[in-house]
């Protein structure tokens, strides 16, 4: 069963609090801090009184607990079956070094929830990365290690104008399900850039070993810095199609009247051409109204098409 208290935020948080209580390190202030870090917005209002009033009988009013042997809970059958499922995915080979997940003793007799062949990504691009390629796997692992360490790597990269070498600090691996490709986000002497993993010929420990570099998620990702406003008529289920299609972007939608809607999308400027193509695919159900520069991008393509027809 998926929806179970076993996996709940409350159980996880209480587990942390009990470990601290067992070590005699729990105070009411610490309790609030841990709840704020691990649970929901109003959880302190429930968890603290339930523990300190002895309602849950896990801790007394002095914040002492009889639960002194606490270890992490065992994994459920569902979790083990999920592990067995992912152990059969070709991308798993990227992560495995000494031990293979599928060879863990605890997973030997476990049945997978499903197999890779049971799921079809029907519109995924066909030129996905070569996950079984040994050189690719080595590059992936080197980059992953460097990201964890914050250490430098020297990369040989096959670009459009031949092979180039870069000394850089990788800070995130980016995966696109549509492209079925990994890219690596790196910092180098001229700023930041994104490199396709499949084009990296070699990745070796960097010469700038004395330094380390780490980046938080908010710094790592370039958020939607450009805006595009669409108006649409809800015919042929266009409203739902548009909203789902662009669900991964930060967006707002408003109803103008009966069947007309306005949708504002925030996108990364580097992805503009892709966005133009995606909007074109909705045909006359969707019209770009702002900014004018974006409207012109659509118009140019329509002009070019019209010219081909003449």
């Amino acid at each position, binding site marked *: 069963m998926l929806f179970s208290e076993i996996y709940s935020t409350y159980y996880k948080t209480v587990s942390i609090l009990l470990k601290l209580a067992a070590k005699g390190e729990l105070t009411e202030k610490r309790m609030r801090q841990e709840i704020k870090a691990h649970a929901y917005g109003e959880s302190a209002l429930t968890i603290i009184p339930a523990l300190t009033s002895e309602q849950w009988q896990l801790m007394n009013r002095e914040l002492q607990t009889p639960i002194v042997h*606490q270890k992490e809970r065992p994994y*459920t059958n569902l979790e083990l079956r*999920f592990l067995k499922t992912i152990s059969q995915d070709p991308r798993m080979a990227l992560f495995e070094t000494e031990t293979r997940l599928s060879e863990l003793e605890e997973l030997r007799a476990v049945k997978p929830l499903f197999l890779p062949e049971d799921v079809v990504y029907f519109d995924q691009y066909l030129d996905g990365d070569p996950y079984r390629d040994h050189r690719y796997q080595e590059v992936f692992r080197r980059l992953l290690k460097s990201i964890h360490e914050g250490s430098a790597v020297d990369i040989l990269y096959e670009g459009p104008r031949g092979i180039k070498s870069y000394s850089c600090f990788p800070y995130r691996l980016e995966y696109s*399900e549509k492209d079925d490709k990994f890219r690596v986000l790196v910092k180098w002497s001229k700023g930041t850039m994104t490199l396709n993993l499949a084009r990296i010929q070699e990745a070796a420990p960097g010469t700038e070993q004395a330094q380390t570099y780490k980046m938080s998620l908010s710094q790592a990702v370039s958020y939607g810095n450009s805006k595009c406003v669409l108006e649409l008529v809800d015919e042929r289920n266009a409203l739902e199609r548009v909203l*789902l299609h662009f669900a991964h972007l930060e967006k707002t939608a408003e109803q103008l009247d009966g069947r007309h809607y306005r949708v504002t999308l*925030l996108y990364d400027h580097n992805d503009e051409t892709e966005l133009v193509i995606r909007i074109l695919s909705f045909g006359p159900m969707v019209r770009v109204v702002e900014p004018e520069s974006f409207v012109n991008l659509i118009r140019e393509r329509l002009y070019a098409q019209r010219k081909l027809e003449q």
Partner: protein
Amino acid sequence: MAYSELIKNFDRIRTYMREFYVYGFRSRSEISEKSIRSYDEERRHIEDYLGEHMGFRIGPEGKQVFLSIDARSSAHNPLYSAWKSKSFTDGDIFLHFTLLDILHDTDILLTQQEIMERMEDYNSFFANPITLDESTIRKKLKEYTQLGLLVSEKQGRRVLYHRPPRPALLPFRDAIAFFSEVESCGVVGSFLLDTLPEEDVFVYKHHYITQAMDSQVCLQLLMALREGRFAAMKTVTRRSKIQRNTVITPLKLYVSTQNGRQYIVGWDVLEKQMKSYRLDYIRSVKPGEVDADFKEKKGLLLEMGKHLWGVSFGTGGSLTHVEFTVGFGAYEQYIYERLLRERRCGKVERLSQNTARFTADVYDSTEMLPWIRSFICRILELHISDPAVEKKFFDDLNAMYEMYSVDT
């Protein structure tokens, strides 16, 4: 009743999360799923779980609540947090920690009686100990054994309980983090991740997080599929929300990487044909008996799948031929490469240095129109053997010329 952050049933929150995340422009009075009270309660729940992503604006019909999430800004799917909000009783949480504390090592094997005796030590810690009867403890032991949290084994007439061995997953943390985002039913990976130290190394592009809300339905269908079972489903129609019951043999899960929609494709037992059902329109799933003809049906889908552009089998089972030619400049070879990588079940033929032809025979050619439109400005020729669909393409194109004032 006082407000509680925790919930008993996921169905209601599933509906509201979808409403706020996908749509986000309807006011309280326009969302008529249940009552005003249930709206207020679910809005508050979602605010608790996803507060930082929630916003509101005042529209003509009142306050409109929405969830706005840039999928790249989160290393983990934020919608998974709702799956971790299940309510429990005082007895549940007491037994969870006490039982696992008593059985803290895999080599501690105890009967229910022995467990209850040891529980006395825990009870004596409190002035007013909780009283749980024998049957409550028996039920919890049975539940935990079924879940896999405990193992029971017989020694003579005695039933002994102990912890199962726990695999060391730390070396696989990155893999679990990755698959919890990209694999179907990834929320289970998120449960695993909650037991491991946190460190994010991945970001995701074109990442659709809405699948999280349909995880239960997805899990049940995939499990039925793996066992070759029938599945009885309660579905709702898209517009009228009319509920209907149906029985299918699930054969494959079809997932779109371009809009996040998930479909179960299978043999509809009542309609006696291959069909696809969107997971977000499936309310519940009940696994049935094993289908003796599972392999044959799977083979049939394998054949039919060669002519599926998306998930529609069209009507009447006939195929439509689609053919179009695109042109590109000397420095635009990426257009040819685009055709190759996006062709799905179609074929691409290089006609000259600067032209290429795409052909496919599909059950439902209307599914192809959005993709063909993405080549606007390069289409030299287009023929669709279904004249109505071909006309639709050109009518739409003319409507776009008009819409953007593209004169002849």
